[in-house]
């Protein structure tokens, strides 16, 4: 039975869950806001950024969007605040704040 899993939530009775918790859709991890777990938050300073793009590939959660060869501000819905981007930035354009 294909179920619209957006109708399932933490109050759903067991009968409404899918068999083996199978998910009938692709790319659903986007809906899972892992940003809620964040303790430290990176702050992006556009003026200091040279667009070297060393930060984007080291983000374990793909939270640094890059369009037309330029990085944009963080995807705070999914950033867990690990701080790897701050360490990778040679120009001090990323600062972790708590």
């Amino acid at each position, binding site marked *: 039975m294909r179920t619209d899993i957006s109708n399932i939530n933490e109050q759903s009775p*067991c009968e409404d869950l899918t*068999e*083996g918790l*199978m*998910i009938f859709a*692709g790319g659903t991890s986007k809906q899972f806001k892992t940003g809620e777990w964040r303790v430290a938050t990176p702050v992006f300073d556009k003026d200091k950024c040279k667009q070297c793009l060393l930060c984007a590939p080291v983000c374990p959660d793909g939270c640094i969007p890059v369009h037309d060869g330029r990085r944009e501000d963080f995807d705070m819905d999914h950033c867990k605040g690990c701080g790897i981007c701050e360490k990778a930035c040679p120009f001090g354009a990323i600062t972790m704040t708590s």
Partner: protein
Amino acid sequence: MSKKDRMSGNEAVAYAIRQVNPDVMPAFPITPSTEIPQLVSTYIANGEMDTEFIPVESEHSSMSAAVGAEAAGARSMTATSSCGLAFMWEELLVAASNRLPIVLTLVNRTLSGPININCDHSDGMGARDTGWIQIYAENNQEAYDNYIQAFPIAEDKRVHLPVMVCQDGFITSHAVQNILLEDDKDVKEFVGEYHPEEFLLNPGKPVAVGPYAVSNYSMEAKYNQEAAMIRSREVIKEVAARFREKFGRGFDFFEEYRCEDADYIMLIMGSAAGTAKQAADDLRDKGMKVGVLKLRVFRPFPAEEIAAALSKCKAVAVMDRCESYNGHGGPLASEVPAALFMNKVYTEVVNYVYGLAGRDFTTETAAGIFEELEDVVENKKQVRQCTYVGLRSKEGQ
């Protein structure tokens, strides 16, 4: 039309695999089940079946590959024994919790140590809480029949759980016995085609299998899995009835051999049930009313049915071919008295541990156990629970 033949248990299961012709069979050899993948490979090489055989590097991989193939939409199976099953342990749980109807043919062999290749049930019993349905065979015929019934049980929409079809290592797997083989056409018809509703290789209908679940979902998911195990009871009975109708033999949860008026019943699984039946016949000839309850389905555990079947006798010998190392007897010693107690049946129970690592279990031994039960009831003999049958010991138990 059935065909009379003679075969070993491994040959019988391999013959059934050829008839079912599953889509995928990943396997790694281990005594005493090695012949099964070997014979299947031969069938494939001879063009008699077209299963995709994957020679993997371990049992951890064979069950992983079976999980992947089944999730992808392929009817999948594997074979193993002993430490091979132990090495699959993690994946056994993954297969069951993801509700994948994989079939595993297990040739029961003891677990180390001491390292030993002979039969007992410690491998299957070790996997008793992995969420697999477990069906045990007394002989080659039952190993063949149970394999054929495994797919319709596993793949039923009410179930969607993996099934382990067990036979005793060497005693059943290597001993040649007379057997009735069914026509390929009849077996294929009985098993049916596999058309899963949801699977990974289904264009336009994406699914994700085995997602992480937080606590708020996991408990409900586990309950749903248990509910499927409970529903499998009716499916096992239906499939057994359909098999009996089509091929004229078989049992559902257990066989009650001369139990109807029995004072003393031996509850036993696997090949030793045949020995127990012979002992029962011998004692019946001498006027002693004894019977054998041969447990076929261990998972789901038919607790109510066992309690009903044992409610009228005076005493039961519960026979474990496995040690649980808990100071309290084997798995059947725990589960059978619990089944009786929960159903308010207060029959006398004596637990015996027998046949570990291939130790012989003879008709004389079985008869001695029946006589001891009589001694317990008639003369209030105090017996030690969980006695090792035939153990050499200075305590002379």
